[in-house]
C-alpha cells in the first residue's frame, strides 16, 4: 500500500497534467514557443546586422572642393551614394527625416592645412542615437584609409621610405595583447549570466500554476475540506502537493534545457561558431550539474508558492499574492548579470544568486566544484526550511479557514 503522500502526489500529477493552462506553460512553451522565439530573435538580429553592413549609405558633402581626394575616396567606395542638399543648415533635419544617412562638412581652410602638412579636421553629421547604425564605423574606415595614404606620402616626402621604416616611426612600441581567457571564458562571462536568469524564470513559471491549482484552487473548489478529513497526517498532504508542484518546475526546466540544447546544437553553425565553441567545450557532467542546480531552486519556489497559495482564499487572490514574488525571486538571479559579482564563498550561501553564479561559472568552464557543496547545502537548507514552514502553515486553521 502506498504512503499517503504518494497517493496525494499521484492524484495531483494526474489533475495537473489534465489542465491545459499548465500543459501550455510547462510543456508547450519550452518545446515550441521558446525555440521559435529565439529563432525569430536571432534571425532578426543577424538580418539587421547584415543590412547595416551592406546598406547603401546616402550622404552629402559640403566643401568637397577643399579636399577633392577625400571626396573621391568616398565616391569610389562601395556602399556609398552621394546626393545633394541645399545648405549645411539643412543637415540635421535631413538626417532626422531619414532623407540622408550622414553628411560631411569640409571647412575652407582644409585645403591649405592638407597642402601645408598640417592637421586638418572635417565634421561628420550622423544619427548617433541609433544603436544598430554602422555609419560611424564605415565612415571611420574610409577616413583611416585616406589617412594611411596621406601619411605614407608625407613620410616619403620627408625621406622615410615606405614599409618597415614608416611603421617603426608611426608605432615605435606595439602592444601585442595575449589574453589568458579562453574563448569559452570570455563568452561565458558575457552571456553566462543570462542563461541562469532564463532557466530560473522558466522554473518559476513551471511552478506557478500547479501551486495555485493545488493550493487556493482546492479551497475555491471546496475539495480541500474533504481532503483534510482523510485519515493521513497533514504533513503528508503537504508533501504530496509539494512534490507535484516541484515536479512542475523540474519538468519545465528539463524541457527548457533539452529544447534549448537541441536548438543551439542545430543552430550552432549559423551563429558563426562562437556558440558552437561554447557548446563544444561544455561536457555532459556540466550539463548534468546545470540541471541538478535547478532542483533546489524548484524546491524553494514550490514550497514558497504553495504556502502563499494555500493562504489565499481563491485562485485570483493567489495570483495577486504570487505576482510580486515573480519579481522578488528573479532579482537575486539577475545579480549574476552585474559586473564584478563572481562566485565566492560569500555568494555561495546567497540563495538563487549562488545558483545563478554557479551556472555562469559552469558555462565559463571555471567552476570550483568544491563550492557546489556550499551551494547545495544552502539551497537545500532553505528549501527544507520553506517546506517545513509550509507544513506548519498547512496546520493552521486561520490559514485553511480564513474568515
Amino acid at each position, binding site marked *: 500500500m502506498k504512503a499517503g503522500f504518494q497517493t496525494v502526489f499521484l492524484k495531483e500529477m494526474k489533475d495537473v497534467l489534465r489542465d491545459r493552462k499548465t500543459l501550455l506553460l510547462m510543456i508547450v512553451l519550452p518545446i515550441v514557443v521558446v525555440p521559435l522565439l529565439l529563432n525569430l530573435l536571432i534571425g532578426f538580429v543577424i538580418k539587421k546586422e547584415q543590412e547595416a553592413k551592406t546598406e547603401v549609405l546616402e550622404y552629402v558633402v559640403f566643401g568637397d572642393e577643399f579636399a577633392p581626394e577625400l571626396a573621391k575616396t568616398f565616391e569610389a567606395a562601395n556602399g556609398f551614394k552621394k546626393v545633394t542638399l541645399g545648405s549645411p543648415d539643412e543637415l540635421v533635419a535631413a538626417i532626422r527625416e531619414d532623407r540622408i544617412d550622414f553628411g560631411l562638412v569640409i571647412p575652407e581652410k582644409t585645403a591649405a592645412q592638407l597642402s601645408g602638412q598640417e592637421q586638418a579636421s572635417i565634421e561628420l553629421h550622423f544619427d548617433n542615437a541609433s544603436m544598430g547604425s554602422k555609419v560611424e564605423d564605415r565612415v571611420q574606415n574610409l577616413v583611416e584609409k585616406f589617412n594611411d595614404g596621406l601619411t605614407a606620402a608625407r613620410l616619403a616626402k620627408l625621406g622615410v621610405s615606405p614599409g618597415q621604416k614608416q611603421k617603426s616611426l608611426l608605432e615605435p612600441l606595439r602592444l601585442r595583447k595575449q589574453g589568458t581567457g579562453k574563448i569559452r571564458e570570455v563568452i561565458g562571462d558575457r552571456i553566462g549570466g543570462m542563461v541562469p536568469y532564463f532557466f530560473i524564470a522558466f522554473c518559476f513559471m513551471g511552478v506557478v500554476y500547479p501551486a495555485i491549482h493545488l493550493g487556493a484552487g482546492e479551497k475555491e473548489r471546496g475539495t480541500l475540506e474533504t481532503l483534510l478529513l482523510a485519515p493521513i497526517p497533514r504533513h503528508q498532504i503537504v508533501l504530496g502537493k509539494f512534490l507535484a508542484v516541484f515536479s512542475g518546475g523540474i519538468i519545465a526546466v528539463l524541457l527548457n534545457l533539452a529544447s534549448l540544447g537541441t536548438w543551439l546544437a542545430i543552430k550552432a553553425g549559423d551563429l558563426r561558431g562562437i556558440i558552437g565553441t561554447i557548446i563544444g567545450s561544455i561536457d555532459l557532467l556540466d550539463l548534468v550539474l546545470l540541471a541538478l542546480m535547478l532542483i533546489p531552486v524548484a524546491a524553494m519556489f514550490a514550497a514558497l508558492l504553495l504556502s502563499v497559495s494555500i493562504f489565499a482564499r481563491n485562485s485570483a487572490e493567489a495570483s495577486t499574492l504570487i505576482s510580486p514574488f515573480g519579481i522578488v525571486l528573479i532579482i537575486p538571479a539577475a545579480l549574476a548579470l552585474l559586473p564584478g559579482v563572481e562566485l565566492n564563498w560569500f555568494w555561495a550561501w546567497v540563495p538563487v544568486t549562488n545558483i545563478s553564479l554557479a551556472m555562469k561559472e559552469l558555462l565559463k568552464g571555471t567552476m570550483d566544484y568544491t563550492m557546489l557543496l556550499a551551494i547545495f547545502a544552502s539551497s537545500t537548507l532553505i528549501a527544507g526550511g520553506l517546506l517545513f514552514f509550509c507544513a506548519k502553515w498547512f496546520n493552521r*486553521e486561520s490559514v485553511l479557514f480564513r474568515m
Partner: protein
Amino acid sequence: MLQVSSLTKVFRLACSKRARGERDPRERGRRFHAIDGIEFGVRRGQVLGLLGQNGAGKTTLLRILSTSLKPTSGVVLCDGEDLTKNPLEIRKRIGFVSGNTGLYGRLTAREMLRYYGKLHGIAAAALDERIGSLARKLDMGWFLDQRNETLSSGMRQKVSIARALIHDPEILLFDELTTGLDVAAAESVLTVVAACKREGRTVLFSTHHMDEVDQLCDSVVIIHEGKLCFEGGVDAMRSQTGESFLDKAFLRLIRPKTEGATI
C-alpha cells in the same frame, strides 16, 4: 455515540471583517464566538437534525465534529473517546458531505472514489468492490467514468455522498445536503440518507428544509447565534411551541432572540 459538552469555538477576526454598523452579539473585541457552550448527544443509529439560521454556527459545529476544526474549549466524545486526542482514527469513522463540497473536475467519479479509498487505506480489490456496490446503491454506474466537471448538480452530490461513504463510516455529517438541488435530485439524495439510517449509521443532518426534518430526523438541535436553543424530538418541537408546522415551530423557538422575525 456522540456526546457534545460545553463546546465553544472562538475565531480571531480580521480587522476588515469586524462589524461596522450593528454588532453581532457574538463579536467580542477582535474575537468571534461562532458557537458558545453547545451541549447535546446523539445515539447510535439516530438521525439528528441540526437547525439554525444562516450564520448560526451549524457549519462550525459540523467542522468540529468532523475534526477539521479544533474546539476552543469543551469536549466531543465519540464512544467515550475524545475527538481531539486521536483525530486520524476518528476520521476513519466519520463521513462528511457539505452542500458546497466540491469535486475534482478533471477526475472521473471512479478516479475520485479510488483516490479517497486509497487515502483511507482500502486495498485495491476491496476498493473496486466497494465502488461497484456504492454505484449500484446510488444509481451512479452510468456516469462513473465521466469527468466530474461534466456532471449535473444531482449527480455531483451523489458522487460526494459516495465519497463520504467509501470507507463505510459509522457517523455521517451532512451539511445542507440538498441546497441547490432540484426536487427530483433532492428526493434521490434524501433516499440515500434514509438508507443510511436503516443501515444503523448515525447521521447529523443540517438543513433549512423542515419537510426533510419531519421526514428523516429522530431528534432536533436548534442553534441560534452560536447558542443551543432547543434539543429534543420533532414532536417536542411542536408540543413546546403549540405549532403544527415545523417552520412556525422553529421560528417560535428562535423568536425571543430574533425580534420581528416573520415567516
